[in-house]
């Protein structure tokens, strides 16, 4: 029973080959929980991560991940998690912000200065990735950005600079065996003219995870629906696999439930559902839940 809970549907949908994952969300259905899950997973198997935080302070993530059973402070001390706090509250700029973005603070929004900041940020990430690779724990490395919309704000709205930076991060994924997870608020880019960043991200992505409110309206025990589109590359082995997934989610205090529409999440029916699922799996006829 436990093996089906805790976001297994999500990981099944995501597979393992995706290098660039773009998480799209909107105000009605924030997708931060996907990021938390992926961060936990990235750190779980001996892997390491670099987290570019623009939306929340470290303590926020620490608190949430602790409830999910993952001690971020510990990982940070062990240099498995490299936390780049890039927020800039007036008068309370973080260490990394001061280190990486001094030009922006000093000279306003000059294009060259912004580009320099991104070069610095990138080389810092590359240094971290290289250091992790040469160390003993040469596991999977994950770069996470929470979120790109705020990175664009930090770059004073210069989309080109943000894209240059992101493309450089993408090159790391193919050279250094790491993956990139990007959160973007889709509804900001709803207007045709400023679709640029979102469209570029969709082009870059191998896998798009999209959180949206329930299309049929509000429900007490469903918080929204998640669709996973596996765009897949040709190098990927499982080319025959299902490419598009859609299911519902419910964010709970210390985990998230993913389930197919129509199966409610009350304990009893959940049990029933999984018994049925098992029965289907063992029966000779094709399972209706596996669309292949």
């Amino acid at each position, binding site marked *: 029973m436990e093996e089906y809970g805790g976001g297994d549907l999500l990981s099944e949908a995501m597979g393992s080959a995706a290098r660039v994952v773009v998480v799209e969300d909107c105000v009605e259905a924030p997708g931060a929980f996907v990021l938390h899950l992926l961060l936990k997973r990235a750190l779980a198997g001996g892997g390491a991560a670099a987290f570019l935080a623009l939306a929340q302070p470290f303590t926020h993530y620490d608190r949430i991940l602790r409830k999910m059973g993952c001690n971020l402070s510990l990982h940070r001390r062990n240099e498995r998690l490299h936390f780049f706090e890039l927020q800039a509250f007036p008068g309370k700029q973080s260490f990394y912000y001061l280190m990486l973005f001094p030009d922006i603070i000093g000279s306003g929004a000059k294009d060259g200065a912004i580009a320099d900041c991104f*070069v610095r940020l990138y080389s810092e990430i*590359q240094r971290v990735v290289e250091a992790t690779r040469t160390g003993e724990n040469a596991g999977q490395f994950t770069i996470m950005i929470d979120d790109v919309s705020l990175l664009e704000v930090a770059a004073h709205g210069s989309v080109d600079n943000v894209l240059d930076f992101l493309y450089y991060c993408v090159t790391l994924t*193919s050279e250094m065996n790491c993956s990139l997870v990007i959160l973007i608020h889709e509804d900001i880019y709803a207007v045709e003219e400023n679709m640029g960043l979102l*469209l570029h991200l969709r082009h870059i992505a191998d896998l798009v995870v999209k959180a949206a409110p329930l299309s049929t309206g509000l429900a007490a025990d469903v918080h929204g629906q998640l669709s996973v*589109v596996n765009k897949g590359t040709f190098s990927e082995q499982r080319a*025959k696999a299902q490419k598009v997934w859609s299911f519902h989610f419910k964010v709970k205090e210390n985990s998230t439930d993913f389930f197919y529409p129509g199966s409610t999440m009350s304990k009893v029916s959940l049990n029933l559902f999984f018994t049925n699922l098992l029965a289907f799996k063992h029966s000779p006829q094709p399972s209706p839940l596996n669309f292949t």
Partner: protein
Amino acid sequence: MAEAVVRYLRDGRLDGEHAPALALEGSLQCCSLAAGAMLHVTAALASQAAAGKAQARGLVVVAFDRSPEVYLEFMRRRGLDANALNRCVRILDCYTDPLGWKQKFQNQQHQENSTKQFSTNKENITVLRNVKDVNKMMYSITELGGGFEGEGKMYFSIAVDSISSLLRHASVPSVSGLLSNLRSHEQVSSIFWLIHSDLHEPKVPRAFECLSTMVACVEPALVDPVCVESPGSMSTLEQNYSKAKFIVRLKRRNGRVKHFYEDLYVEGNDVKFDSAHVSTEVNQSLVPKVQFNLELSEKERTDRANVVLPFEHQGKGEPIQIYDGRRSLPEGQRDPNLAPALVDEIAPKSGTAKGEIHYVRDSDDEQPDSDEDPDDDLDI
């Protein structure tokens, strides 16, 4: 027809003409398939060049979107060995370090750390570190193209993947300048490029289509009119990620444009084209294919012509009268000045119990059964 497209690229330029150019367009809905089509054309042309069947001695790939390894890997899977790859393929790597950031970083920590991870030691990959300089890029491309072995006049082909990434760094005029300069370069046998049409304003892909002799659009096999990029109908999306339409427009030298399309799908790690469904779209008549017959037979046509329409009472022995707009009454029998007398005369003639509508045609131009307002006053 991908084969025909590759054939045109293979045959290369004719004397006194610019090199043939192919613009490959894809949108987000089937983006990976467009990329697959690009890889297919690249690999097909490279193997033609390696076999010595093409006009070009080799192929220069300008790689923006994918790592050079992806191309080499794909060509290897298509049966090109390392020797052929080294001989016939050069890759200008604009993916790894397009702005020189990595070099800058390397210079910073120059010290003992000489792990040359980024300067690939492969002889057929050249890293370009400043893509903003379009002139330098052109110089690099022609330099790489001139490096193929062989005697006599040497031609080479160019693949640019993709223009969309190049356009982030350079303006539309400078990129089109680059392409048309390359097309007119005397050593270039053919050139083709990929463009993601939805990343730009509609006029940008158009501008590049004008530079090309062939346009191949990769379009989704199924179009869902309700939701284009929303996860509403999963089956549609699922279909579109595994199959697409490959629509080709070929511009002949005399200006004629040919259209055709075939299916494009992914099988395993490879891209396949299904030419069984090649449509002869242009040749077939415009009448849609239906179960029942929409055409008339000869007999039906004559029967139809013989039907006397209810208001078509004239012309059977009586003189045909045409209303000329000034006289409201039949002329010939009476002078219009004697109108009151005429009324008297008509009245007994048509004064039988049944009513009749007399209709006078406006002119001979008017078809008897036309839908037009017969006397211009109904305001239909």
